[in-house]
């Protein structure tokens, strides 16, 4: 108990638990109302949100178990509405990209060159492109690329941005992605290429690719990634890094309209959000940029992101309408 007194900062655990228990009990009494003063209490200390969650989750242990562990009851089919929501979530991207595809078709007509199609996405726009031979490309925001179909090769030239490719294997017509000086040749696979200026990162989630760079050749298998820094790697070659399935899922979460973070830096996450949104987030204190973030966020909800990110690094988000500033 003497240890509790030496607790580093903020209220002692038992004080915090007591306060959180009061709010959890009040919320449990009237589920539809936010008790008066709760918002102020939550805003007082970033730890309060966590303490409230712990108290509410502890209380939720004492609700009927069927509600609590739905995944442990596989024989209960999902309700119609749940299925409808699932379907909507799964298909929203596709429905949205249907419109984009039509737009892309028009753009393709305007920019028509023999055997080549150009695709570009603006800020906040994402696009799904299916090629005639069956391969498909997801284009992230602010991405520009050209598809060239030739009789002996399929070539995507990535000028800028990020694309996830699901390639239909065809040994007679290799599939290549050219990103500046780097060429990635597919050997039947799903992989992602990011180009920011001259820096290129390749991540393979299925199958294998072969990369040709000024410094030599490199093969990447499923679960491997390699980053080419445009300047530093003119002579040398990067090593293939192995990444976990969870990291791959995080790295490709943008295809589902999400950003997933597992200890990434705040400034990098803000760059990513800003690429996707007109409403920009700025950091007033650069030191905050090194803070680590965890969690999943919608790419199209900059204010939600700024609010939760600020909370988890002990800062505040101020929305001025034109920008959102994260400040201590």
């Amino acid at each position: 108990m003497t240890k509790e007194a030496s607790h580093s900062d903020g209220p002692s655990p038992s004080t915090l638990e007591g306060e959180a228990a009061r709010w959890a009990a009040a919320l449990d009494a009237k589920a539809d109302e936010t008790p008066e003063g709760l918002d102020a209490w939550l805003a007082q200390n970033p730890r309060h949100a966590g303490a409230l969650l712990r108290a509410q989750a502890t209380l939720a242990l004492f609700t009927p178990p069927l509600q609590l562990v739905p995944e442990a009851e596989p024989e209960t089919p999902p309700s119609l509405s749940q299925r409808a929501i699932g379907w909507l979530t799964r298909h929203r991207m596709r429905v949205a990209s249907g419109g984009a595809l039509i737009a892309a078709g028009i753009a393709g007509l305007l920019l028509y060159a023999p055997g080549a199609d150009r695709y570009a996405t603006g800020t906040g726009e994402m696009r799904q492109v299916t090629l005639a031979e069956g391969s498909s490309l997801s284009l992230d925001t602010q991405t520009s690329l050209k598809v060239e179909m030739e009789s002996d090769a399929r070539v995507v030239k990535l000028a800028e941005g990020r694309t996830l490719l699901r390639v239909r294997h065809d040994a007679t017509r290799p599939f290549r992605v050219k990103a500046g000086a780097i060429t990635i040749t597919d050997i039947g696979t799903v992989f992602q290429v990011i180009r920011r200026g001259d820096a290129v990162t390749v991540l393979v989630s299925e199958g294998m690719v072969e990369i040709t760079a000024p410094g030599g050749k490199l093969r990447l298998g499923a679960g491997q990634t390699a980053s080419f820094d445009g300047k530093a790697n003119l002579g040398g070659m990067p090593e293939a890094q192995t990444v976990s399935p969870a990291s791959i899922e995080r790295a490709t979460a943008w295809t589902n309209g999400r950003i997933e973070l597992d200890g990434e830096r705040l400034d990098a996450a803000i760059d990513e959000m800003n690429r996707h949104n007109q409403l920009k987030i700025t950091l007033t204190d650069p030191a905050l940029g090194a803070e680590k973030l965890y969690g999943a966020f919608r790419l199209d909800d900059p204010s939600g992101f700024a609010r939760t990110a600020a909370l988890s690094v002990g800062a505040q988000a101020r929305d001025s309408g034109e920008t959102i500033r994260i400040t201590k």
Partner: protein
Amino acid sequence: MSSPSVPSPEIIRWVATHVVPQEGAVRTTLRRLNVSESDADDIIQDAYCRFAALTCVAHIDRPGAYFMQTVKNLWRDQLRRAQIIRFEDFTENAESFVEPEAMGIEAVCAARQQLRMVEAMLAKLPERCRTIFTLKRVEGCSQKEIAARLGVSESVVENDVQKALRLIQAEMRATADATGDAPTRENGQLLDERGITQRRTIALNA
């Protein structure tokens, strides 16, 4: 706009199912690594803050491991800030963070662990608190319905819910791993605990 809000029912359920029942195991692990009680409290509080900031949990397919991983990262950050160990020391010690899912019985295990915990907690509550929590759990009664059944005012029920919650949370903090394979010595050397870590699957850096 800049203030945090009440967590969604989805997050609360997820934390109740996968996080709260693991708290004992996490505390035991931290204790085994010679993390002080107050530092462990800080780390676990911070982990809950991280979960409160989640807007979606559907992507977390191994929730127990996620909790362990979050705690492990927080502990690593704390050590880095304090600059008291070399990174290799961390990597080695981090092996005591085990992944319950790796045993392939995650759902069953979580449900059973939760049931055992709930029963143990119920047994320790004062009588009226126990009645209230049993009515909630077994019959899914609201506080209002419970008040009507017991013939007391709603504020009495709310007070008892609050009191019971406080007791249960304090108990959770005091109880280390309830699953039975907690080490007997609090400050035992990690290498001496290898028997335990080998029986379970080891979580390395994800």
